[in-house]
C-alpha cells in the first residue's frame, strides 16, 4: 500500500460510514411506502408522485431563487473587498481577514437573533430613528428583504475568502504587462484580472449557492415563516408530519440539484494549484 493511500484510509473509511452510508440510506428510504419507518417495505415511487402532484415545487423555487439572489449580491459586495485585501490593505489584510473570520465561529442563530434585535419595532434601528427624528417607519423584519439580508450576512465569508484566494492568484507581472501594452483599466479587469481569478470566484459562488439553498434558519428567524424554503418542507416531513419517506424523497431531489452543480464545477478544478502547492 502506498503511503498516500495509507494515510488517506482513516478519513476515507470514516466518510464512508458517516457520509456515503447515510446518503444511501436516505435514497433507499425515499422508495419506501409513505409513513413507514423501516427499510423492509416494497420499493415504490409513490413519494415522488406525491411531490410532483403537490405544491412542493414552490418551496424549491424559493430556495433556488433565494440562493441565486444571495450569490449575485455577495459577488458584487465581496469583489471590491477581496481586491482590497490582496492589492491595497498590505499589512492590514491579516487583521481585516481576522475581523471577518470571527463571526464565522459564533452560532448562526445568535447572529440572526442580533439582526432581530436590530430590526424589530423599538429595536436598535427603529428605536434610534424614533428618538432622533420622532418618526416610526415600518419594520422590515418578517419580510423577504429581511431574509435576503440574513443570508447575505451569514454567507458573506464563504464568498469573500475563496474570492480573495482567486484574486491573489493573478500575478502582478501579468497586470503590469497588460498596462504597459496600453490596456485600459477596464480592459485589464475584463481580459486579465477576471479570467485569471475565476477559479476562486467560481468556488465562492458554488459554496455560497449550495449553503444558501440548504439554509433554513434565516427564513425561520428573520422571515417569520413568511416564506417556506425546501429545507423547511423536508424538516416538516421528518418531524411534525412523521412521513420520513416523503422527507427522504425531497432530500434526494435537493441532493440531486446540488450534487450535479458541485460535480460540474469541481471537475474543472485543480485543487493543488488553488490551495498553493509549489
Amino acid at each position, binding site marked *: 500500500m502506498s503511503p498516500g493511500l495509507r*494515510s488517506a484510509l482513516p478519513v476515507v473509511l470514516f*466518510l464512508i460510514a458517516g457520509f456515503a452510508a447515510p446518503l444511501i440510506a436516505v435514497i433507499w428510504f425515499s422508495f419506501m411506502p409513505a409513513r413507514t419507518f423501516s427499510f423492509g417495505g416494497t420499493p415504490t415511487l409513490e413519494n415522488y408522485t406525491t411531490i410532483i402532484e403537490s405544491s412542493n415545487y414552490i418551496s424549491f423555487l424559493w430556495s433556488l431563487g433565494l440562493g441565486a439572489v444571495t450569490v449575485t449580491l455577495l459577488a458584487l459586495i465581496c469583489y471590491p473587498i477581496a481586491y482590497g485585501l490582496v492589492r491595497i490593505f498590505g499589512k492590514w489584510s491579516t487583521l481585516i481577514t481576522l475581523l471577518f473570520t470571527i463571526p464565522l465561529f459564533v452560532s448562526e442563530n445568535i447572529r440572526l437573533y442580533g439582526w432581530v434585535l436590530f430590526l424589530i419595532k423599538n429595536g436598535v434601528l427603529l428605536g434610534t430613528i424614533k428618538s432622533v427624528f420622532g418618526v416610526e417607519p415600518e419594520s422590515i423584519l418578517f419580510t423577504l428583504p429581511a431574509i435576503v439580508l440574513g443570508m447575505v450576512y451569514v454567507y458573506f465569508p464563504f464568498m469573500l475568502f475563496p474570492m480573495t484566494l482567486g484574486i491573489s492568484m493573478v500575478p502582478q507581472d501579468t497586470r503590469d504587462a497588460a498596462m504597459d501594452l496600453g490596456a485600459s483599466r477596464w480592459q485589464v479587469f475584463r481580459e486579465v484580472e477576471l479570467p485569471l481569478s475565476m477559479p476562486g470566484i467560481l468556488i465562492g459562488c458554488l459554496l455560497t449557492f449550495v449553503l444558501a439553498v440548504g439554509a433554513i434558519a434565516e427564513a425561520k428567524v428573520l422571515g417569520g415563516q413568511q416564506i417556506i424554503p425546501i429545507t423547511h418542507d423536508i424538516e416538516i416531513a421528518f418531524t411534525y408530519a412523521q412521513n420520513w419517506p416523503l422527507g427522504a424523497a425531497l432530500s434526494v431531489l435537493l441532493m440531486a440539484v446540488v450534487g450535479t452543480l458541485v460535480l460540474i464545477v469541481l471537475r474543472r478544478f485543480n485543487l*493543488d494549484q488553488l490551495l498553493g502547492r509549489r
Partner: protein
Amino acid sequence: METRAVRLRHSLVTAWTLAAIVFIYIPTICIILASLTASRYFQFPIARWGLDWWQKTLNSIEIRQLLSTSITIALCVTVIAVTLAFFGALAFARYDWKGRSLYQKIILLPIFFPQSVLGLALLLWFNTLGLPLSWKTAVFAHLVWIVPVVTLVISIQVYSFDPALEEAAFDLGASRLQVLREVTLPVLFPGLFSGSLFAFLLSWGNFPLSLYTTGADTTVPEYLYAKMVAGYTPGVPVLGTISTIGAIVLLLGGYALITALRRTRASE
C-alpha cells in the same frame, strides 16, 4: 491624473470594506446591548442598564449543564478531528499517489453539502443502526462536516512542508516514530493548532447538525434557538454574548500564540 484616480479607487474600496466590517458586527453589538438591559423586555434606547440577567443566567444550573454539554462535544470533536485530519492532510498534500485527485474531491463533498439535510440523513442512519441519540451521536455528526474542513486547513500547512526534512532524518538513522515526533509534528504544528481551533469553534457554534442528532441532550445553539422561536427571553442575549466573547477570546488568543511562535522560530 492617473494617481488621483488610483487614490480615489483605493479610498472607495477602503470605505466599502469598513462599511462591511460595521455590517458584520451590527448583530453582535445588538446582542451585547440587549444582555446589558435590566428590564424584562428589550427596548432601545435602553431605559435601565444592569447586569441582573447575567447573574441569573450564570447561576442557573440548566445553563451550566448546556455549557458543559457543548464543551464536551467540542473537545471530543477537536481531538478526533485533528487526529484523522492530520493523516488525511498528508494524503491530500504531501504524498503523490494514484487516487489523490479523486480523494481530494471526495474530501470536499461533505463541505459542499446542505448541513440540515446532512443532519436529517444522519438521524435516519442512526435510527437504522439502532443507535440511541445522545451527545455522542452528535460528536459523530459534527465530525462528518468538521473532519473535511480541518483536513483542508492542515493541508494548507502541509503544502509548504519540505519532504526533504523527513528524508534527511531517515538518512541520519531516525526511526519512523522519531521522524514523526521530532520532525513532522513540530514543523506542522501551526497547521495542527489552527486546525484544532477551527474544529473546536465550528463544533461549538454548530446548530443544523446538533438539532437532529443530540437526542435528549441539548447544546447551547439548540437551546438558544428553542428560546428564540418561543418569544423574547432575557437569558438569550446573555448566553449569546458569552458564546460570542468565548469565540473571540479563543480566536485572538490562538492568533497571538501562532504569531509569537512564528517569531521565535524565525529568530532561531
